[in-house]
Each structure stands twice: as structure tokens, then as C-alpha cells.
């Protein structure tokens, strides 16, 4: 084995959480429903993951009333952005291992 294993962040390692972080890292702010549809999860599943991400300080939630309806806007924090970036790099390194040729006997 060559070199240490890439560091993976357990907070965002769950695929849905990484997808949420990935979507939020791509925008400045997005509405709850937009993130839910992009990730393809239910309201309750998204809420659960958001609680964990928010608790870790990776995601910020903001309530705003627009047109008489209360909406939740989500954004990624600096720590969340760094964690996402590092995690993606680690996954890319791991995925790269899959394409390495198997050593000849």
C-alpha cells in the first residue's frame, strides 16, 4: 500500500449529506424545497440531515416569509465548504485507486 488513506469526514460521509453539502457549495443560498428536489429525498429525511449538518456547523438555516409563506433558506458555512472540499478530494483519491492497474504477479 502506498501512502496514508485519505481522510474522510464522518459528518458528511453519508451520501445524502455529501449531496446536500455539494448542492449548497454550488450556490450562495437555496430554498429547502430546491435542495430536497436536487438531492431526491423526502422533507423529513432532509430535515434530519440538516440538523446533523447544522449541529456540526456546516450548514446555516434561515427562515424568511415570502408572499405570506414561511420558507427556509439554506447556505453552507466556511467550515462546511472546507469539509466538503476535503471530503471530495479524499473520495477522488479513493476513486482513483479503482482505475489503477492490478499489479502483475
Amino acid at each position, binding site marked *: 500500500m502506498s501512502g496514508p488513506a485519505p481522510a474522510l469526514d464522518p459528518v458528511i460521509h453519508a451520501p445524502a449529506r455529501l449531496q446536500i453539502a455539494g448542492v449548497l457549495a454550488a450556490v450562495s443560498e437555496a430554498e429547502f424545497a430546491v435542495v430536497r*428536489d*436536487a438531492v*431526491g429525498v423526502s422533507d423529513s429525511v432532509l430535515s434530519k440531515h440538516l440538523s446533523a449538518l447544522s449541529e456540526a456547523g456546516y450548514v446555516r438555516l434561515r427562515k424568511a416569509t415570502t408572499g405570506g409563506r414561511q420558507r427556509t433558506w439554506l447556505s453552507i458555512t466556511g467550515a462546511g465548504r472546507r469539509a466538503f472540499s476535503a471530503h471530495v478530494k479524499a473520495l477522488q483519491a479513493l476513486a482513483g485507486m479503482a482505475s489503477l492497474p492490478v499489479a502483475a504477479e
Partner: protein
Amino acid sequence: MTAQIDREPMDAAATLAAVRESRTRIADANACPPWRHALFATLISGVVAAQAAPTRVFFALLAVLFVGLIAMFVVQRARKGVFINGWRAGATRGVSAAIFAVYMAIYTTTWFLKSERGLWVAPLIGAAILFPLAWYASRRWMQVYRRELAL
């Protein structure tokens, strides 16, 4: 308790593919139609062209153009449920900085030519030069953004 993390290369590739797919959905949902690139170019070239108007009209035009620019972003945010700052960190910032520098150069040059040399037509020529550049920059920004989202 230590979290159990899969370190399988194939799992990593599948996870990255899922992230890429979610980000592509966001990029697709926020893709700008051609008219929006043209509207952006019209609004910022309009600010340059407005210098050709008499002072009182100039300020009225400036107010209308800035309200138009703000409205463009507010409407987009309300309709799409997403806000993407043009100065966001990443590869797109270079495109934003480049068009801003071009805009400032054209604005200050045309301002100088009009106010110091009396060339009232300079702002109109400047706007005509800026329009295609701003249109191209807007399109380019979106291309760079999409490429960045593909990881």
C-alpha cells in the same frame, strides 16, 4: 464511537457520481436563457450609454437601470428558490473580475471623453463595445460554473 466509513474505491466513485448528479440538477434548473444574458448586457451597457444623456435624464436612467439589475436578481431568486452570487468563490470569480475591469475601463474612458473632450457620442460607442463583451462574459460565466459543478 468511531464512525464506520467505507473505503471502497467503487463506493467513492458512486458517491461522487451522486453528488455530481445533484449539482447538475441545480445547474440545469438555473441555466440562463439567451434573453437573460442579453438583458444583463443591455443593463450594464445602458449604464455607460446613459452618460450621453443630459444630467437630469442621466440620473433617472441610472436609477431605472440599477432597479432593473436588482429586479433581475430578485425575480430570479423568488422564481428559482436559489441565489447565486456572481462574485462567489471559485473559477467564476475570474470571469466576474474580468468583465468588471472591462466595464470600469470603458466607463471611465467614455466619462473622460464626454466630460473633458465634449465627445457626447463616446458613451454610445463605449456601450456598443461593452454589449457583446458583457453578453459573452455572462455566457462564459455560466459555462465555467457548470464545469465547476461537475467536480
